[in-house]
């Protein structure tokens, strides 16, 4: 990205993929975002931090991504009264991030939409949890907030409120549908129900143990988060892990992708009224999780990736079982793919359902798997290949169709590619150590970790304090940018198709509520 005509200098930023930091003033922030957008950059994350203890007021961080890597704009607000420009006019996905930043840090954008996003009346509205002088009082009771949903009026329009407790085994969130007959005119999401103070919790932890909490931001992406966290800390301490550890991490990451895609393909069949699909795919997924237990000491590989490497070496006795499993999965998935493709009832539900056209996907910044199904052909493993991906010859797979069928087909394609990667990794695993000791990180140094998880790019931004403590950690899920796009994907569809469309995105609640 070329910001030279704006006159802002960039400096290197510790990160696993190419990244720069760029301090900007208020006008420069908006101008830089515009220039970045024009040059094809997309918003990755936006968050605030309280730096008053260092006489630096508050800092707003905005991370964008383009073909050259990441750029982190840093904008200093001298006090809480000063506001920053509304960036949602350039990047629509900034809306909820700006509102969450106000709820947690108390710095506001100039946007018209100032409704709370994370805050739900469980603490006073003028207390901001991520300020350093914040102290929770025991008298604060869980509250309830009268959220200002957008109303739709007219003949025959009615509202269907759903949640936060849903009918299935899923995470909580509230959906407000405005419908005419069965047709959805508008959907508005209200999230934040599983906000459990993760970012504040990080500040009480030592940097060397933060990967455990990062691995519990969104359990289905535990490998991606623990890896992004570890990358950030390793970049800050300039201590690369041994080669063997990098390969084993990729093994865990690809197996996480395989397990989640298998699970989703089963549930997508089930939501299309085809229970056979669920029992078949959940059977295959169970096999993968059991092999994970033998490989990583945990069915989901939680706490396997850690700063400096991985927790366990590759157990040689399961090597042939892992390779056999790849063969079995390839065979079985190919049979099941044919069955899905030839099943008229299922295809009737999948095709032309929940469409996000590529133009809309680009405008709204749809990312990750859902983005690739709508023509946004970005994949960190291909765009910025780090070991071992630089030698594995991975391709970015994408589609222009943008419907449920495209998101299903992409899962099949990625599943096949991940199985190939697992086989390659096991065959070519380099010898050596699996862990190295990290020195204590420098105080006030910042670092980024960014990993292509199964859902999309997971970012972890880390700043350490004195004595190896965590000063600020912001884990950022791709769901932040994709949830608002789901609201668009359901417009004009019928209400009973919502579960299917929702499942085809399969976004994280916990990952965005924090």
């Amino acid at each position, binding site marked *: 990205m070329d910001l030279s005509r704006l006159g802002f200098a960039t400096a290197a930023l510790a990160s696993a993929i190419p990244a720069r930091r760029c301090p900007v003033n208020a006008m420069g922030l908006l101008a830089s975002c515009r220039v970045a957008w024009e040059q094809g950059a997309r918003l990755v994350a936006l968050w605030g931090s309280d730096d008053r203890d260092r006489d630096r007021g508050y800092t707003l961080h905005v991370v964008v991504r383009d073909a050259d890597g990441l750029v982190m704009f840093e904008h200093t607000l001298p006090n809480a009264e000063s506001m920053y420009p509304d960036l949602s006019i350039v990047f629509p996905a900034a809306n909820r991030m700006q509102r969450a930043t106000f709820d947690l840090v108390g710095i506001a954008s100039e946007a018209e939409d100032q409704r709370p996003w994370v805050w739900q009346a469980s603490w006073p509205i003028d207390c901001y949890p991520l300020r350093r002088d914040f102290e929770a009082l025991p008298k604060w009771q869980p509250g309830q907030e009268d959220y200002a949903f957008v109303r739709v009026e007219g003949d025959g329009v009615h509202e269907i409120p759903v949640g936060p407790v849903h009918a299935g085994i899923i995470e909580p969130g509230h959906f407000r549908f405005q419908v005419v007959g069965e047709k959805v005119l508008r959907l508005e999401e209200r999230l934040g129900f599983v*906000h459990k*103070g993760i970012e504040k*919790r990080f500040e009480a932890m030592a940097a060397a143990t933060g990967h455990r909490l990062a691995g519990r931001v969104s359990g289905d992406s535990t490998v991606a988060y623990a890896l992004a966290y570890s990358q950030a800390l390793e970049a800050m301490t300039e201590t690369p892990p041994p080669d063997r550890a990098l390969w084993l991490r990729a093994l865990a990451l690809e197996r996480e992708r395989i397990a989640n895609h298998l699970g989703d393909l089963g549930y997508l069949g089930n939501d299309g009224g085809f229970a056979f699909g669920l029992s078949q795919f959940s059977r295959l997924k169970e096999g993968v999780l059991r092999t994970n237990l033998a490989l990583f000491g945990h069915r*989901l590989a939680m706490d396997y990736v850690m700063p400096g490497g991985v927790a366990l070496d590759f157990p040689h006795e399961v090597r042939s079982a892992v390779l056999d499993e790849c063969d079995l999965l390839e065979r079985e998935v190919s049979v099941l793919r044919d*069955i899905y493709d030839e099943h008229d009832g299922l295809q009737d539900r999948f095709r032309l359902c929940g469409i996000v056209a590529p133009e809309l996907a680009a405008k709204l910044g749809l990312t990750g798997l859902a983005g690739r199904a709508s023509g946004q052909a970005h994949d960190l493993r291909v765009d910025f290949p780090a070991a071992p991906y630089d030698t594995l010859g991975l391709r970015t797979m994408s589609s222009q169709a943008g419907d449920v069928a495209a998101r299903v087909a992409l899962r099949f394609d990625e599943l096949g590619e991940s199985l190939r990667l697992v086989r390659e990794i096991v065959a070519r695993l380099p010898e050596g150590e699996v862990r190295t000791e990290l020195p204590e990180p420098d105080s006030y140094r910042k670092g980024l970790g960014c990993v292509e998880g199964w859902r999309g790019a997971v970012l972890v931004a880390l700043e350490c304090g004195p004595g190896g403590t965590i000063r600020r950690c912001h884990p950022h899920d791709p769901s932040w940018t994709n949830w608002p796009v789901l609201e668009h994907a359901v417009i004009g569809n019928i209400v009973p198709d919502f579960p299917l469309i929702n499942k085809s995105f399969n976004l994280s609640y916990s990952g965005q509520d924090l």
Partner: protein
Amino acid sequence: MLHILRQIAKCGIKTEPAPPAGDEMVVAARLQESILRTLGRALTIRHVDAGSCNGCELEIHALANPYYNIEGLGIKFVASPRHADLLLVTGPVSKHMAIALQRTYDATPDPKLVVAVGDCGCTGGIFGESYASLGRVANVIPVDVEIPGCPPAPSALLAGILAAITAAAARP
């Protein structure tokens, strides 16, 4: 259709025997024998995510796969607390979910069993108690059985659920 039937026949039956009830997980046995006789081993469950990271949900989902086949044991997940005998609650209870959890509990008819799932449900886990989290499930509603683990494996979940419905009968 032939494809589907062939695949079903080829797979055969994968279901494994259920584990014994994990009686050590019982923290409060309050099921009367008479109710137990009526329920037998048929049980309806309403799952509530009260603040989980969704790791526990993945393993609860696994209970329905052919290996654990929870429905084959007469245990069924239902869509409303009004149809449920047992609440399966995950997560540290986030403050934002506390009222919804309490209402779900109030809407559940007797015997109103509650099983807290995972280290977070049992102790608050890594998230603990904070401005946003009330910690363990028992801090908000009465709990009968606690299933530790991060997340607990499906066999542990099954042992805990079976404990909730059988432990009471073994007591005088």
